[in-house]
């Protein structure tokens, strides 16, 4: 075989592997829509998205996912309230204030948080956090949106911190030097020059953290309580879309309305995370342009 031929062969080989992931993605999307769309013949889109009751196995069934949708949004919001200040503050500290020695210690530790399997978080939440929450707030049960938010918030910290830190570190040195030259101190420089310059990257970090939280399944299934009601407070049990799919898919009859409804929930989730990713991408591009 000639050298050029060999090169072509190798290139083709790697191209095939690169295309493979596109192939898988489109396969998943096609199956998702093929299995999910038939539910809208039984329950119209409006009824499906805004129906207040989820009773998929009763006669007649109710396929309203509003409680599940709101459950997911509440838990995500709660997690962000915890993860954004902690994650961004850690990123600022690591990028701007920490000595190299401390930085070398803290960074891997935070990234280690991402390496803990979510079922471990769930178990920890169920056995340790939930009883504690019930005791402290004098609640009948500790499995609720608050407990779930807390755990998911901790799980989102590594994503937010590491991407934010990259964004902060990417702010050109000249910006800082210009600020110092004008007589600003370190805090003023960080707050008024570096953070605004890194805002795009930090927003990207937050949105990717959100995508991580809203897609999280096993932890919320274990600690959020799972009541399919429209939440009124953080201290009530809630059920998310992911938990519903995980709990009910295993034993439902393939091809039934319930089965299609679960796939339709997956479509809703897919659309939400896809839009998060698109927004994050747009923000990153804008951010690059501003710095360039």
């Amino acid at each position, binding site marked *: 075989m000639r050298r050029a031929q060999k090169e072509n062969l190798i290139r083709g080989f790697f191209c095939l592997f690169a295309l493979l992931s596109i192939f898988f993605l489109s396969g998943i999307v096609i199956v998702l829509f093929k299995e999910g769309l038939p539910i809208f013949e039984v329950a119209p889109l409006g009824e499906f998205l805004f129906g207040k009751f989820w009773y998929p*196995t009763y006669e007649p069934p109710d396929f309203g996912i509003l409680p599940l949708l709101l459950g997911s949004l509440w838990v995500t919001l709660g997690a962000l309230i915890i993860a954004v200040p902690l994650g961004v503050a850690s990123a600022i500290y690591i990028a701007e204030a920490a000595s190299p020695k401390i930085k070398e210690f803290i960074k891997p530790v935070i990234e280690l948080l991402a390496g803990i399997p979510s079922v471990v978080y769930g178990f920890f939440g169920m056995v340790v956090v939930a009883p504690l929450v019930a005791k402290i707030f004098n609640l*009948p*049960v*500790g499995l609720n949106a608050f407990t779930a938010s807390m755990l998911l918030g901790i799980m989102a910290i590594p994503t937010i911190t590491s991407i934010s830190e990259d964004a902060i570190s990417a702010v050109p040195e000249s910006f800082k030097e210009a600020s110092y030259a004008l007589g600003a101190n370190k805090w003023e420089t960080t707050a008024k020059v570096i953070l605004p310059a890194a805002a795009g990257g930090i927003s990207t970090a937050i949105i990717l953290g959100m995508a991580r939280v809203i897609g999280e399944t096993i932890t919320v299934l274990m600690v959020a*309580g799972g009541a399919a009601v429209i939440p009124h407070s953080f201290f009530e049990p809630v059920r998310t879309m992911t938990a519903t799919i995980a709990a009910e898919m295993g034993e439902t*009859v393939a091809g039934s309305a319930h089965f299609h409804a679960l796939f339709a929930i997956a479509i809703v989730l897919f659309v939400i995370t896809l839009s998060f990713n698109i927004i994050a991408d747009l923000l990153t591009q804008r951010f690059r342009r501003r710095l360039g």
Partner: protein
Amino acid sequence: MKRIILQGLLMLFIFGLATQGICAESKRLVIQGSTTVLPIAQKAAEVFMQKRPEVDISVRGGGSGTGIAALIDGICDIADSSRPMKKKEIIKAKEKGVNPEPRVVAMDGIAVIVHPSNPVDGLTLTQLKGIYTGKISNWAELGGRNQKIVVASRDVASGTYECFSKLALKKERVRPDALLQASNAAVASTIKRTKGAIGYVGLGYLSSEVKALIINGVVPSVETVLKGTYPISRPLFMYTNGKPKGLAKDFINFVLSEEGQRIVKEQGFVSLK
């Protein structure tokens, strides 16, 4: 290059045909029906096929009604069912010359559990239904402490839920704010840690860490379930056309054997022995 690929494909094709031929010759058994019985049938089929590799068993869910319909149409050899056949189904079967024979393979019994510190020892089925549908929401109404009742339920697709909903709730809707738990073990774990909680689990999941309630004056136990006096219990059937014979007979005998009944127990049901 192209020729090699073509040759390869051709060989795969021939190989595929050959193996299919072998499969068609081997013994096949089709089991269909109740999702409650599904885990028993599935596990038993796995073990059975390990012992007799020439046998090919396909186990499908679909619900008791689907299984019985398939048996009447001659599509399956064994129909799993969590209820006795209805009169209409029997008439339909007779019309088609099918003579369904039931075999009870296991008992399904569900215990209602509370935190061990709860002073309430027993409930009537009406009270239980009241709790789960939302009419009763404080233990004080049942002679217990003044404490909100935390209702724990299973995911609606599970067999345990189906049985409980049918026998205890008469198919009325569970209150929407009930906690959803994805397994018997998760329910037991929640009840163990929550003072005001009530939940239900398969009889196999009872332990000293939770308190099983007396229902309508009957203590849930293997004995009362086998006697049929405990109200939240039911037999699980495998139906065949006529007396089971051949492979179907071997399989049902395996399920009824000591090893088969151990599988029944492992899956959280009450074994017949």
